[in-house]
C-alpha cells in the first residue's frame, strides 16, 4: 500500500514551531446540568471568550478548596465546534477526587475554572473526509459524540455539498442498557441519516428482548461492523485501556493502517505494569 505524497509545502509547514499563545484559565459558569446515566452527568458551560475547539479535543478543569488546595483533571468536550457553549459529560469514578464533585455536588450557577481546548491529534472534522469509524467504550463516547454532532451539523448546513457527505459508523460498548450515554440522541441521529450506522454492544445483563451484540468488542465484531481496510477509514478509538488495546490491535490485525487508527485511553491498566 502506498501513501499519497504530502502536498507541496507540507513538510516545511510542520517544522514551524506552533504559535505559542498561552492557553489561559477561564472562569466558566454552569448553565445546565443533565443526568445522562446513573454515573454520568452532562455539564453545559458558558465560557467567556472561548476561542473555539475541534471535535475530539479536551479541557483541563481546576477546582480550588477553601484552604487553597487545587486539583486538576482533563475532560473531553462533547459539544460540536458549532455550539457556542462548552459541554462536558463526566463519568463518576467512585474513588475519584474530582469527578464525584462534578457529578454530585456542582450546581447550575456555580463557577468552574477551565482551560483549553487541548490536543491536536485526536481530532476530526468533515474537511478531513471519511469514511469515519468511531469505536468507543463507556464514557469514551464523549469525544466521538462531538465528532458525530459536528458531522450532523455540517450535513444539515452543507446542503448537497458532496464533500460533507461523510459516511460514518459508530460501534459503542456499554456494560448495561442504562449506562448507554446519549442513547436517545444516537438513535435519533441514526434514524435521521442513512449514512450513519450506530451499533451498540452490551457486555453485561442485556435487557429482555435485546437483539444486539452482547459481548466485548472483538475482532469478529469489528470485521462485521467496521469499514473494510480497503475503504481506508479514519478511525478513532476511545475508552478504557483494555478496550482500546484490544480494538486497536484487532484493527491492525484486520489490515487497517496503524497510522490511521487514533486512540485515546483512560483509566487503570488492570495490572501492575
Amino acid at each position, binding site marked *: 500500500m502506498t501513501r499519497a505524497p504530502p502536498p507541496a509545502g507540507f513538510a516545511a509547514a*510542520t*517544522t514551524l*514551531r*506552533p*504559535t*505559542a*499563545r*498561552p*492557553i489561559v*484559565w477561564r*472562569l466558566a459558569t454552569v448553565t445546565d446540568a443533565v443526568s445522562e446515566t446513573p454515573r454520568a452527568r452532562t455539564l453545559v458551560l458558558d465560557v467567556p471568550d472561548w476561542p473555539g475547539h475541534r471535535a475530539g479535543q479536551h479541557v*483541563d478543569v*481546576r*477546582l*480550588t*478548596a*477553601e484552604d487553597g*488546595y*487545587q*486539583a*486538576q*483533571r*482533563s475532560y473531553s468536550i462533547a459539544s460540536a465546534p458549532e455550539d457556542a457553549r462548552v459541554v462536558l459529560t463526566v463519568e463518576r469514578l467512585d474513588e475519584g*477526587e474530582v469527578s464525584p*464533585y462534578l457529578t454530585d*455536588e*456542582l450546581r447550575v450557577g*456555580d*463557577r*468552574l*475554572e477551565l482551560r483549553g481546548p*487541548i*490536543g*491536536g*491529534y*485526536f481530532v476530526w472534522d468533515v474537511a478531513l473526509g471519511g469514511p469515519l469509524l468511531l469505536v468507543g467504550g463507556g464514557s469514551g463516547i464523549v469525544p466521538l459524540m462531538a465528532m458525530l454532532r459536528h458531522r450532523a451539523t455540517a450535513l444539515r448546513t452543507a446542503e448537497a455539498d458532496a464533500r460533507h457527505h461523510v459516511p460514518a459508523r459508530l460501534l459503542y460498548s456499554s456494560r448495561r442498557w442504562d449506562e448507554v450515554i446519549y442513547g436517545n440522541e444516537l438513535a435519533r441521529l441514526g434514524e435521521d441519516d442513512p449514512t450513519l450506522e450506530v451499533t451498540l454492544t452490551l457486555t453485561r445483563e442485556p435487557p429482555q428482548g435485546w437483539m444486539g451484540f452482547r459481548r466485548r468488542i472483538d475482532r469478529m465484531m469489528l470485521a462485521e461492523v467496521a469499514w473494510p481496510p480497503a475503504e481506508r477509514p479514519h478511525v478513532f478509538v476511545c475508552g478504557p*485501556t483494555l478496550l482500546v*488495546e484490544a480494538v*486497536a*490491535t484487532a*484493527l*491492525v490485525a484486520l489490515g487497517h493502517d*496503524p*497510522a490511521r*487508527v*487514533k*486512540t485515546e*485511553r*483512560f*483509566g*487503570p*491498566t488492570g495490572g*501492575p*505494569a
Partner: protein
Amino acid sequence: MSSPFSRGFRGRPRSAAAAGRLPPGQYETRDFPVLSAGPTPRVSLEAWDFTLRGPGGRTARWTWAEFQGLPREPVTADIHCVTKWSKFGTVWEGVSVNTLLAEAAARGVEPAPYVLAVCDGDYTTNLPLADVTGGKAWVALSYGGEPLAPEHGGPARLLVPHLYFWKSAKWVRQLLFLERDQPGFWESHGYHNYGDPWREQRYAGDE
C-alpha cells in the same frame, strides 16, 4: 488571577508524603495508566535494533543481542504524566544514554545539541542533549523487575523521569543528534517543547 473557591470542594486528604514530591497540578496514583496515540506496535526481537546517528550521518547500531551486552543500571524515579498523574518510586533497569554515547564516540559518532528520539509507530519526541546526558536518561528494558510490557513501551523505551512522561518515548529505536531542535509528535500537536513538570510546562505557550 487568583482562583475562586469551588463551593463544596474539599479534595483528598492532604498527604505529607506527597508534599514537595508532587509537581503543581499533579495527583498521585498507585496504578500505571497507559497513554498512546495509536495502536501498540509489536516488533520481533530478531528485527529489533537500536541506532544512534550523529549530525554528520554516521551511525552506531546495536542488535538486540548486542544491546543485552551493554551494562545496565537500576533506576528508581518518580514519574509525572502531563495528563496529571504522578507515580512515586518506579523501579527500572536500563542502559544509560551516557553509556551509549561513550560506545558511539568510540565508533566515531559525535553528539549534537539536540536529540530526536524516533520510535516504532512513527512516534517522535525531542530533547536537548543536556537532558539525556549526565545520568538523567536511560533506554529502559525492564520495569518492576520484569521485561517491559509492550503497552508500556517494550521491548525498550526512553526513560527521562525529570520531564513529563511523554518525553520518555515508548518503543524507542533511534536517537538522532541534531544541530537544530526539531519538534516531535506531541510537541507538534499543542504540547510544550520542553515539558518540565515543576514549571508546569504542559502546553505550547505555558510559561
